[in-house]
């Protein structure tokens, strides 16, 4: 059903716009619904407009046909309210871009929290996060049986004296061919451990700061794109010099349909919800694209944990290597 709506919307001409608008009303949870009104409420929440002035911008039909998406007058955003701003540090800034055209358009300017996007780049903490992410899911399955576990006779192969041969007591002793392995790998062995909470927190903040400092962090208004053609995304990434691999992060579990279809066949462009954002994926992808809503959520959570009053939550307990499954 949703697929039909999307494709139908692209194919119809401007004469059928009333039909499209009526279809839009039918689909509250997909791409089509995330248009001007959603954006304007988002923007309003950061520009501190009153809710009573919640004006849905009037979308002309020309704009609808031209870009596929409607937005309010530019700039959409110039200022964000930042909580817990540290003394003596200015907010860092980033452009807000669009995804609905291949050419980049600057839609506004976003303030970023300096504790999250401008913190000291602790590369070694990033490395320990990466190592943790690689290790905690690893299980070493190698196993070598000891002499007791090997099948076969437990008898002394020949008498101690009188045969003229070397003395032996066991055919499966380690020095025998086909014998047991002393102190060998005793798998399955789990490498699970938990990195301390602070290291995970500062790892994320450092990684986001590094991404922003190296111009690899892009902030877009929404992840809606006008077509589900993979060529469109490839052209867009190529044109904007975003490198090969791109990670899109949105605040919802359900990715925009067009983006999901367009990036589905491209292995190096991936979509992720906010709660899945992690250091390893950010390292792996060259460019990180955050929607404005995702940025809000990420920043809100990280700033909360950086300034919380109980600094040792239960999750901050260090779980040592081997204390789960030995």
């Amino acid at each position, binding site marked *: 059903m949703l697929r039909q709506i999307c494709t139908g919307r692209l194919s119809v001409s401007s004469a059928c716009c009333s039909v499209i608008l009526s279809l839009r009303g039918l689909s509250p949870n997909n791409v089509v619904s995330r248009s001007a009104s959603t954006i304007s409420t988002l923007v309003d929440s950061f520009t501190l407009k009153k809710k009573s002035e919640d004006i849905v911008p009037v979308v002309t039909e020309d704009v609808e046909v031209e870009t596929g998406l409607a937005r309010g007058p530019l700039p959409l955003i110039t200022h964000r309210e930042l909580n817990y701003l540290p003394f*003596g*540090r*200015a907010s860092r800034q980033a452009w807000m871009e669009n995804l609905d055209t291949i050419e980049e358009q600057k839609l506004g300017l976003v303030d970023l929290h*300096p504790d999250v996007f*401008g*913190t*000291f*780049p602790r*590369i*070694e*903490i*990033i*490395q*320990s996060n*990466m190592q943790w992410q690689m290790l905690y899911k690893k299980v070493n399955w190698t196993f070598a049986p000891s002499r007791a576990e090997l099948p076969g006779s437990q008898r002394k192969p020949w008498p101690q004296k009188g045969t003229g041969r070397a003395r032996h007591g066991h055919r499966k002793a380690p020095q025998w061919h086909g014998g047991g392995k002393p102190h060998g790998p005793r798998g399955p062995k789990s490498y699970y451990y938990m990195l301390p909470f602070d290291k995970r927190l500062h790892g994320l903040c450092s990684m986001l*700061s*590094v991404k*922003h*400092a*190296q*111009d*690899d962090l892009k902030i877009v208004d929404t992840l809606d794109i006008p077509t589900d053609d993979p060529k469109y995304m490839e052209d867009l990434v190529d044109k904007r010099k975003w490198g090969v691999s791109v990670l899109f992060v949105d605040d919802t579990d359900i990715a925009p349909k067009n983006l999901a279809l367009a990036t589905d066949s491209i292995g190096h462009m991936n979509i992720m919800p906010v709660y899945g954002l992690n250091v*390893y994926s950010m*390292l*792996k992808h*060259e460019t990180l694209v955050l929607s404005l809503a995702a940025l809000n959520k990420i920043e809100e959570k990280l700033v909360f944990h950086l300034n919380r009053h109980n600094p040792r939550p239960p999750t901050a307990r260090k779980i040592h290597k081997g204390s789960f499954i030995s």
Partner: protein
Amino acid sequence: MSMKSGSDWALALLRTLPRVGLMNLPREPFRKHPRTGRGQHGGKLHGGPQKGSYQRMSYPRLGWEPRKVPWYVRVPMENYYKDHHLKRQYPPLSLGTLQLLIDTNRISTDEPIDLTAICNTKLHEVRPQERHYGFHLTVDGIDTFKAKVNIEVQWTSEAVIAAVEKNGGTITTSYYDLHSIYAAKDPIAWFRTGKPIPKRMIPPEDAIEFYTNPKMRGYLADPEKVAEERLVLAQKYGYELPKIEEDPQRDLLLKRKDPRQIFYGLEPGWVVNLRDKCILKPKDEALLQYYSN
């Protein structure tokens, strides 16, 4: 209010560095295990083996480096002549000597004077094996210099340029690499070897600035800027700049070599056969391309 914090400096530095990725992360430094023992009095072995300086704690004195003179005893060394044997040398030739050579008909002012003309006097020579890169025209005898010449030297100073240009002459500084110096200092000997005339190489990195400087009349400088600097220099030293355009010897004075050329009238790549009195020119495309670049 805001100020530049340490994080800002670090992030600004990171901006110039390669992208942080999976393959270029440094490891978190290991926490070293304490070397001391764990019993009373810190253990009886002091963290070391059961013998030797660690157990007896007979540590070397501070600043001790084995097999080296300690840094606080060492005499500081300034290598004044460091890489001296690699530097470019320019044997001096004074303006007075040049005037003497002209007056005694060792050098003709009817031809442009270059490295070959000076070496042909057999009174001055360059030794490329001693890293002589040509002549340095010095100011000695500047008061008695009266000749009007078109001279090409390898190094000079501003006063010399003013002296030459005041008399209506022109001066160029041009670079010859050592291989070209071998050909230029004695053309007959070079032609006898049967080797083609080499092409002159462009100056090394530290000499580019000098040879592209119009104030130093560099051979790679823009001719329009050189003309402008001639006027500026005349105003600085207070003489009237003779007009070369109206000079009867105009063609002589404005004769210049190509930056790749060593001898007037001969091009790089040509082979001069002295016995048959003929010139052999390359025809191969690769050779032509090499010598034309």
